[in-house]
């Protein structure tokens, strides 16, 4: 009896809607979009590290990325959708969580949880502010429109010069480094947590996922921070 009611409900409402309305379904959304964004930051760093190969390499890479507008805009659209879903879901989950726990305890410390875990919403929000600034800085150009107009001798956008000029401002570089610190915090919990949400983590594999999360977060932090630091220290000119 319950089985037929269940399947009727399923067919009438649709799988996606049902997932979206359930707590566990929303956690899947957080996990899958989080995994997508984790993949993006890895590729993004790998691309940017080409600055160490000199202007030609990174400018050619920049040209490659923009060579096919259809691919570029599809990728941008998908990324934006993933970001939007990740944030929207986070807002809904956080609202529900706050509602479920309106009164805090007067005494004691939180049980077992880590700083990175408890601050994941705040680190996420600051990273969002950073992403907006970062896009304004190097993609849209509302920070310094000139940065996007540099051209190299081959007539390509001079990504190298844009990065060197952009990061020569210590205040901006420090903001980038702080933001990367928050990304480190965010990913050190998030990357392991997403496998738990997808039901793929266990006591046996916890150590592996925990090391993966912390290791990857640290590599991303060091890689990303190396660029503004190298520029500020004059290693990249």
């Amino acid at each position: 009896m319950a089985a037929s009611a269940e399947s009727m409900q399923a067919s009438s409402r649709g799988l996606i809607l049902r997932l979206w309305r359930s707590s566990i379904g929303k956690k899947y959304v957080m996990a899958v979009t989080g995994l997508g964004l984790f993949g993006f930051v890895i590729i993004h760093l790998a691309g940017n590290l080409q600055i160490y190969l000199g202007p030609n390499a990174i400018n050619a890479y920049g040209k490659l990325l923009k060579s096919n507008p259809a691919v570029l805009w599809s990728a941008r659209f998908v990324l934006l959708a993933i970001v939007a879903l990740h944030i929207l879901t986070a807002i809904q989950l956080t609202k529900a969580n706050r509602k479920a726990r309106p009164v805090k305890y007067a005494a004691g410390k939180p049980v077992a949880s880590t700083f990175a875990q408890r601050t994941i919403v705040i680190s996420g929000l600051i990273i969002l502010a950073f992403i907006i600034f970062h896009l304004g800085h190097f993609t849209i150009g509302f920070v310094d429109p000139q940065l996007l107009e540099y051209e190299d001798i081959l007539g390509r956008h001079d990504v190298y010069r844009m990065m060197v000029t952009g990061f020569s401002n210590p205040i901006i570089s420090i903001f980038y480094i702080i933001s990367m610190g928050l990304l480190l915090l965010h990913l050190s919990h998030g990357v392991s947590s997403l496998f738990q949400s997808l039901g793929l983590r266990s006591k046996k594999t916890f150590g592996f996922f925990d090391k993966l999360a912390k290791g990857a977060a640290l590599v991303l932090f060091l890689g990303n921070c190396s660029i503004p630091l190298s520029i500020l220290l004059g290693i990249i000119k």
Partner: protein
Amino acid sequence: MNLTLRVWRQKNAKTAGQFVTYQARDISSEMSFLEMLDVVNEELIKSGEEQIAFDHDCREGICGSCGLVINGTPHGPLAATTSCQLHMRFFKDGDTITIEPWRAAPFPVIKDLVVDRTAFDRIIQAGGYVSVSTGGAPDGNAVSIPKDDADKAMDAAQCIGCGACVAACKNASAMLFVSAKISHLGLLPQGKVEADHRVLNMVAQMDEEGFGNCTNTGSCEAACPKEITLDNIARMNRSYAKAIFKSKLS
């Protein structure tokens, strides 16, 4: 030993509560935490004051009735121990102990330290059972159960439904409780038949009751007096995906 207690006093669900300070005098280190409260209550009776209300039943750590947040930790500082099994030898003379009720919107305070946990009962009613057909009783050993499954099911069956997981969780999530029931019943052959609906219906009821969402911090696991692990939540997350896709396909 002598102790100072800061106890949450609240007349009923509608009135606002507050902390009231009491002195617990001549407490033996052999007493359980609840016996210490009994002593304080005896004094309150003598002086004509209202006793401190707290839940308790078996006082041997298996019924799930007791549940106090002691110094910010559900069931107090000792791991894998219910409030009733926590003994006063874990405290020092002169300590100040703060005692609060479980804090969660789906667990409203009834009085003082007693909360209404019927939300858990409704979750159980939604699917936390195994339907049994009438007729002759089958032979107990007729169905083989892999040792590994039996062990995991029995570990999950340790859950006494006290709600410490909800109390410890910063989001008041009930996922450790629900996942323990889903593992306990769903891993065994008798419970597998209803496994899909069980997970779908229990999770739906859990959401309906207004419990929060799991952020995988592990506070629940640390506070659980029966050491239910996060593995159960991962299993529930897997089972839910399987069940919801299957329900769509059929």
